[in-house]
């Protein structure tokens, strides 16, 4: 029983990482109607920027804010330079573009900061949280920030005009233009916001997994899985999905005999697929009905 | 005497029995029943949202009625999956045009023959003799239909750039390619001007007469319905409001109130 509780708590702690990334995934999905495979790498790069600033002596919170600003601007710049020209290209060509971006960012980060792991500071400290040795204050802080971000995103998409416009631009650009939405800038804005949220995710994740150019590889897979499980249209779903994936994979790894550990990820993914087969829009996504 | 009248008395080709459809809280169809007799053109009218398209979707098994039954030549179709509807002779067009946008007109029509042919992926890959002969025959049939509907000029064109009215005609061709017994037409006159509607009316009648197809026609263009339908059913809020000859229905006060509106209003 103690092991069970421990694994659930450890799962929640890891789940916070996935949830964080999943929020960024949902953000970009709402903005461009697609998953950006380079998103994890962009987050990693932002985190390196923060790290570099701190190496240069910038205090934590200043580095944090500067990184957010940089990431936001960087996201917009990437969209303007690399993806705007592909706006009319087929969707799959854009996906190829994401892969190219992935390769570029990863490789540049590797050359600039090499592959040794870097320690990344946490503003929350890493002492045990509330006396429990299973969750550190950093992880608790991370859960807090994730939930905070979730609320902000939810409010943004549901209650602001720009959130509505962004969703419209992603789902049907032609009609969006016909109601006066500058679709192209909505997409750029979406990239900017997704990039900034990614930066927050990276900064929160790095103290746990250590900063290095490949730190987001695994995280992104789980982030996608979590977002898809929760429903790509729902920030709440993304967060719940993140925690569920975290907890479930731990329990699977612990309790499914024999194959458990080696197949932790496949089993978690298989579960997600099962859920999707039963509920194609994810747990919290609004099912979209097609009719003729 | 029309064929429809001749067929009266005999058992209906298609019988809709007390069909209801519910979406969440919305009752889209509420106990609708009517018969279709061989060779008839049956007009189905009613206000927007009355449930006409929903009924079509039940007939082509895209929707599952929550109660009631639909009988084709006496046998229920509700046990059939959607893709096994075409083979019993129910063909349809779609209100909002549902072509295969990246295929040519000919290929769209060829897909229409899917239920009338059979071959498997292996024979297809090897292009076995009988597959080749089948394709040749099918091509003849498809070209005949394309010509019949006056689509020769655009036969090799990709359909997505065609004018709306032409696309509707391609849909009609595609439906005809399967040699249906019943043709379900959902607003075929949409986007056509008066003259074009007239031509369409003649075409539908010709199809009925020459190809022995029974037609169920949903249309808001009253001129068309009144001129070609033998029999009209009016729906409102998912219920049958009236049924009879075009003249009867057109004069029905309920229909006027709910659907036609009086001229001097």
């Amino acid at each position, binding site marked *: 029983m103690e092991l069970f509780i421990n694994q659930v708590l450890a799962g929640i702690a890891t789940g916070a990482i996935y949830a964080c990334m999943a929020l960024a995934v949902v953000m970009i999905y709402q903005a461009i109607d697609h998953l950006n495979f380079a998103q994890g790498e962009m987050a990693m790069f932002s985190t390196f920027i923060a790290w570099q600033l701190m190496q240069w002596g910038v205090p934590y919170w200043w580095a944090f804010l500067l990184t957010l600003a940089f990431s936001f601007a960087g996201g917009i710049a990437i969209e303007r330079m690399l993806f705007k020209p592909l706006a009319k290209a087929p969707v799959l060509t854009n996906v190829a573009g994401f892969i190219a971006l992935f390769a570029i960012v990863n490789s540049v980060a590797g050359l600039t900061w090499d592959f040794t792991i870097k320690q990344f500071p946490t503003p929350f400290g890493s002492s045990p949280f509330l006396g429990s040795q299973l969750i550190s204050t950093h992880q608790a802080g991370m859960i807090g920030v994730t939930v905070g971000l979730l609320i902000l995103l939810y409010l943004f998409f549901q209650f602001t005009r720009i959130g509505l416009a962004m969703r419209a631009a992603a789902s049907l650009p032609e009609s969006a233009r016909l109601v006066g939405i500058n679709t192209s800038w909505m997409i750029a804005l979406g990239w900017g916001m997704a990039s900034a949220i990614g930066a927050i995710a990276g900064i929160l994740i790095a103290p746990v997994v250590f900063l290095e150019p490949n730190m987001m590889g695994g995280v992104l897979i789980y982030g996608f899985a979590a977002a898809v499980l929760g429903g790509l249209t729902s920030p709440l779903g993304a967060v719940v999905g993140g925690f569920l994936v975290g907890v479930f994979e731990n329990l699977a790894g612990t309790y499914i005999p024999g194959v458990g550990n080696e197949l932790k990820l496949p089993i978690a993914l298989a579960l997600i697929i099962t859920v999707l087969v039963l509920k194609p829009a994810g747990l919290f996504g609004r099912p979209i009905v097609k009719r003729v | 005497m029309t064929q429809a009248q001749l067929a009266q008395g005999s058992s209906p080709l298609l019988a809709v029995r007390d069909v209801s459809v519910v979406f969440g809280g919305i009752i889209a169809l509420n106990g609708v029943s009517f018969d279709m007799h061989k060779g008839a053109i049956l007009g189905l009218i009613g206000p927007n949202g009355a449930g006409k398209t929903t009924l079509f979707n039940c007939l082509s098994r895209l929707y599952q009625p929550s109660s009631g039954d639909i009988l084709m030549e006496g046998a229920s179709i509700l046990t059939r999956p959607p893709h096994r509807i075409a083979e019993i002779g129910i063909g349809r067009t779609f209100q909002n045009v549902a072509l295969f946008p990246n295929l040519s007109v000919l290929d769209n029509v060829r897909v229409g023959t*899917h239920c009338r042919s059979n071959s498997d992926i292996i024979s297809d890959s090897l292009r076995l003799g009988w597959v080749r002969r089948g394709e040749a025959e099918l091509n003849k049939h498809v070209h005949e239909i394309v010509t019949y509907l006056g689509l020769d000029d655009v036969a090799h064109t990709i359909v997505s750039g065609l004018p709306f009215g032409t696309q509707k005609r391609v849909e009609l061709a595609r439906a005809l390619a399967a040699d249906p017994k019943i043709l379900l037409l959902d607003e075929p006159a949409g986007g056509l001007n008066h003259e074009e509607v007239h031509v369409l009316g003649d075409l539908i009648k010709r199809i009925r007469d020459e190809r022995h197809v029974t037609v169920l026609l949903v249309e808001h263009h009253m001129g068309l319905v009144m001129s070609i339908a033998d029999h009209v059913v009016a729906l409102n809020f998912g219920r049958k409001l009236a049924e009879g000859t075009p003249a009867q229905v057109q004069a029905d006060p309920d229909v006027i109130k709910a659907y036609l509106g009086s001229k001097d209003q």
Partner: protein
Amino acid sequence: MSAVEEVTSEAPAVEAVPKRAMTLGYGTSLVVLGLLIIAPMFLKNFFVFQMTMLLIYALAVLALNILTGGSGQFSLGQSAFYAVGAYTSAILMEHMGVNYALTLPIAGIICFGFGFLFGQPALRLSGIYLALATFALAVAMPQLLKLGFFEHWTGGVQGLVVTKPDAPFGLPISQDRWLYYFTLVIAIGIYIASVNLLRSRSGRAFMAIRDNEIAASAMGVDVALYKTLAFGVSAGITGVAGGLGAIAVQFVAPDGYTITLAISLFLGMVVGGVGWLPGSIVGSAFIIFVPNIAEHISKGLSGAVFGVLLFLVIFLVPHGARQVAIVAQQLIGKLKK
């Protein structure tokens, strides 16, 4: 509640090609074929080996193209099918002494079955959801191959070394050349069969599904069946490619069949032109040679250089090699006038 199919709405993931544009004209085909037959006679063994790999990956790209360009389903899981094909051949050859040529149809059939079965749950998914499911398959495959449970057969993390076949009947050509021509014959056979398939009733059913599922089903197309068949066919061809790959490389190991392979095949398809079968070989050349060019330009930044080259290609020809072919065709047309 009625049984309305709850289809997640997705812009069709695939920008489709009109069917007539899916293949090459006879003249061009013959020229390409001639080159493929003659070139290896004058090349060093190493280049012959590279050309063999070129054909093998071209087959795998072609398989993905049938799935995506043909039936509109997206797959990031092709590496898994490739792996199953490779391991099937390797195990049959090394553990059971089956002749290498015989292992290929077996690999194809096993992969067809595997793909067909995988297609079942994938049926309910489309677009991104399908992408995730196939992605999961790709991620899971190396881990499955490592499982201690199968270790006796798969060699676990160590993999299996495969013996390279000699030319039969004492033909006086090198192993590499023999394998090349062997692969070429298979590749041509599969290419022709694929073209036939897409031009037939089944192929039209695939494309109808790609363009409009609901309408396809109203025309009598068994959407579920054809979607899973497309998966099966695609997996089967990929499996044959995998088997050939195992023989050519003489080694199978879990690390050879990671998601990176699936991504490469995907890039090959995009670069070659989605839905344009002859593009497969162009795409295959891209994924084999461009990384080499990239590392030649800069070792430390080879990834970045590769990314930049890829961006250049998709900026210039967002529709892939197909676009080049169309432009060329128009030019030739003009010249002829």
